């Protein structure tokens, strides 16, 4: 708080908007999960499952996920560089352009303007907006780093830079298309090529938007919260280079057994398994940083969020490589197992880290103590239980359906028709609705807690600033 030149106003705005989009994403998620069990809840033409599902995923990844990335990066970069933001005006532009882009995406997707490419559904005019947005963000971060006061760059800055570059390359290549009209374009690539480009993009969107940035956040907020440095900076660097090298080879693990050339699939499979090493490099770095500090798990709710978050990251990066193995993929691909994997990553890893980051930021950007730590703990349990119900029920569902799809009679014919396997899914889909509602309740508690902090929280005593977070 002492250094008034730091731009916290922009961080406050991004926190607010990312939380709003997060609520939208979860709400639409609950709606589509209900549509899967109760098809009468489809209201054509706009409110059908096929049009709403991409709104859920994009609001989640780009509204909530990237919104938090903007908020935290703009904060972290100023602190680590010990210098104010390069341009406050550009940051302000970024904020409003971000919201304009998200709103434009939601509206056009509802109207059915979509490319159908997963996580890249928005049509080309929105792609242009996203590119402008990203460039504005990139300039501000890079320029701030260039004029930094501290020569050495902490690992979080490395991950930020890699994410900025990575997203830029991935997004523009996958966006290539020939417009037929303002809201209809045809991919520049056809068939198998298009599939390969799309999943090179798709999987590395996971790397550059849902892995590198949360790692940057984790590496910053964990030591800040516990008050002790990370275990090894050099380990984090080794993991960094290996991670950004290996990820790019793995896209085709989404395309195992498809017409994509076998050698690409095999490379993807091999590199996916190798990815365990750099992923767990970060996980171990996190755990070992807790040496002698494990008591903080009980005393400090932020540590709980962060350590659970990195644990889910660890589980995610064991499960992912497993799914990338041909034989295992043959079994669970196309089933509900995969959404369960996704949601351990998004609800468990990305969101846990995001919640912790925001709880850490709030006192510093508003100068008020968090309104209620018991509520923060309640939220922790609600989102944890909600996510576990969600994922576990759909892992079971996925294995069940995969088993039924593969079941054979002694005469070599299939035991079950498609519908016989599909009706078995309903109880699990209902369990998901239930888990989703619990998670949403957790989110509502979060928003209430934030609102009360901002409007009624006790002003912060200055000297506690550096140890805030410890209950």
């Amino acid at each position, binding site marked *: 708080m002492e250094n008034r030149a730091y731009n916290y106003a922009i961080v406050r705005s991004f926190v607010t908007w990312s939380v709003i989009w997060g609520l939208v994403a979860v709400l639409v998620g609950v709606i589509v999960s209900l549509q899967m069990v109760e098809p009468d809840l489809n209201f054509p033409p706009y409110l059908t499952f096929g049009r709403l599902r991409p709104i859920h995923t994009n609001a989640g990844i780009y509204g909530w996920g990237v919104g938090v990335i903007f908020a935290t990066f703009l904060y972290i970069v100023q602190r680590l560089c010990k210098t104010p933001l390069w341009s406050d005006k550009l940051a302000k532009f970024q904020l409003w352009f971000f919201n304009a882009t998200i709103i434009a995406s939601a509206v056009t997707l509802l109207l059915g303007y979509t490319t159908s490419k997963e996580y890249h559904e928005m049509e080309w005019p929105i792609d242009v907006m996203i590119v402008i947005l990203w460039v504005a963000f990139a300039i501000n971060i890079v320029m701030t780093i260039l004029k930094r006061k501290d020569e050495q760059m902490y690992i979080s800055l490395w991950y930020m830079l890699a994410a900025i570059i*990575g997203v830029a390359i991935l997004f523009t290549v996958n966006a290539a298309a020939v417009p037929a009209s303002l809201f209809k374009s045809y991919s520049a690539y056809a068939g198998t090529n298009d599939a390969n480009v799309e999943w090179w993009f798709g999987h590395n969107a996971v790397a550059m938007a849902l892995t590198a940035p949360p790692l940057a956040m984790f590496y910053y907020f964990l030591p800040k919260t516990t008050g002790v440095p990370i275990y090894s900076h050099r380990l984090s660097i080794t993991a960094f280079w290996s991670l*950004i090298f290996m990820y790019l080879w793995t896209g085709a693990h989404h395309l195992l057994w498809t017409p994509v050339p076998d050698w690409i699939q095999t490379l993807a499979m091999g590199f996916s398994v190798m990815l365990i090493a750099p992923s767990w490099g970060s996980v171990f770095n996190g755990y070992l940083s807790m040496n002698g500090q494990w008591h903080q798990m009980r005393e400090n709710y932020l540590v709980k969020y962060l350590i659970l978050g990195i644990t889910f990251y660890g589980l995610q990066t064991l499960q992912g490589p497993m799914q990338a193995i041909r034989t295992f993929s043959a079994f669970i691909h196309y089933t509900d197992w995969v959404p369960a994997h996704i949601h351990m990553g998004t609800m468990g890893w990305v969101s846990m880290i995001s919640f912790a980051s925001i709880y850490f930021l709030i006192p510093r950007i508003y100068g008020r103590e968090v309104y209620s730590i018991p509520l923060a703990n309640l939220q922790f349990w609600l989102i944890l239980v909600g996510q576990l119900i969600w994922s576990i029920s759909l892992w079971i569902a996925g294995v069940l359906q995969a088993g039924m799809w593969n079941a054979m009679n002694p005469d070599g014919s299939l035991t079950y028709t498609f519908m016989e396997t599909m009706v078995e899914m309903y109880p699990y889909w209902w369990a998901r609705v239930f888990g989703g509602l619990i998670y949403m309740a957790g989110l509502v508690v979060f928003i209430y807690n934030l609102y009360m902090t901002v409007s009624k929280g006790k002003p912060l005593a200055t000297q506690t600033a550096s140890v805030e977070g410890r209950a």
Partner: protein
Amino acid sequence: MWEKKPVLLIVLATGVILIGTIITMVLPFAWVNTEADRIEGVKPYSALQQEGRDIYIREGCNNCHTQTVRPLVSDVLRYGDYSKSGEFVYDRPFLWGSKRTGPDLARLGGKYPDAWHYQHMESPRAMVPKSNMPDYGWLSANQLDPQVIQHKMETLGFPFTAEEINALKGKTEMDAMVAYMQKLGSDIPWRQNAKTEIVGDLTNPYAGVGHATMEPWEELYQQNCAACHGEHMEGVIGPELIGGDYDDEVLFEIIYTGIADGGMPSFSNLGTDKVWKLVNFVKYYHLGEGH
């Protein structure tokens, strides 16, 4: 070195990212969709089919349906011949999907008669009671715009004729969707090639069973056949079933292999046992208790 020089770090990181990118993403363009992949008989979409495809994309059908059959026993038995790269050269974008909430559609063309699709799209649950597919009857209310479609065909560089474009007048989005459904996966003659071979003697294992034994088999009929032949075999999309017209073995063949040109699907994936049950059910059940 790069620990202190952000620009150098950016350059190095970009280089590192590009290695895997070039090898697994750029390089394949040298092989994929080249002459080696070409399959005789794979044609671009007609204007009507392409418009159906665009509507499929608009409605996000790909969120529930995949369009690629894997070379795995269970996939091939359930859906048909596995997908080949050359079949997709006109697909912009690809629509393989990632989740099978509904069945794969890669080999759908020719599986059902048009009438089945119109009714199914109108109300999936009227045909398949437990389906969670949304109703799409409203597509019938939307007229196609030939001008727009012509422009799309030009953008794609697909061949079309003036008559073809003229013929779009008065057609609806539903017509386009059904035309697209019927084109899916039918560019290669896999159905003829795969004409199911029935091995061994055909002897009815349930010959002469009583009415009571057959009662539970009604479920099989209702699930698989009622949508087309009616709840009481009175005929809807398919004809009224008067099983007595056929010998057991002939009936078995009809159900097992289907009548491809007539719109009667093959039910070989039910397995011989269930097909025999259906044969008996269709032929004898309506004769009542006395039989």
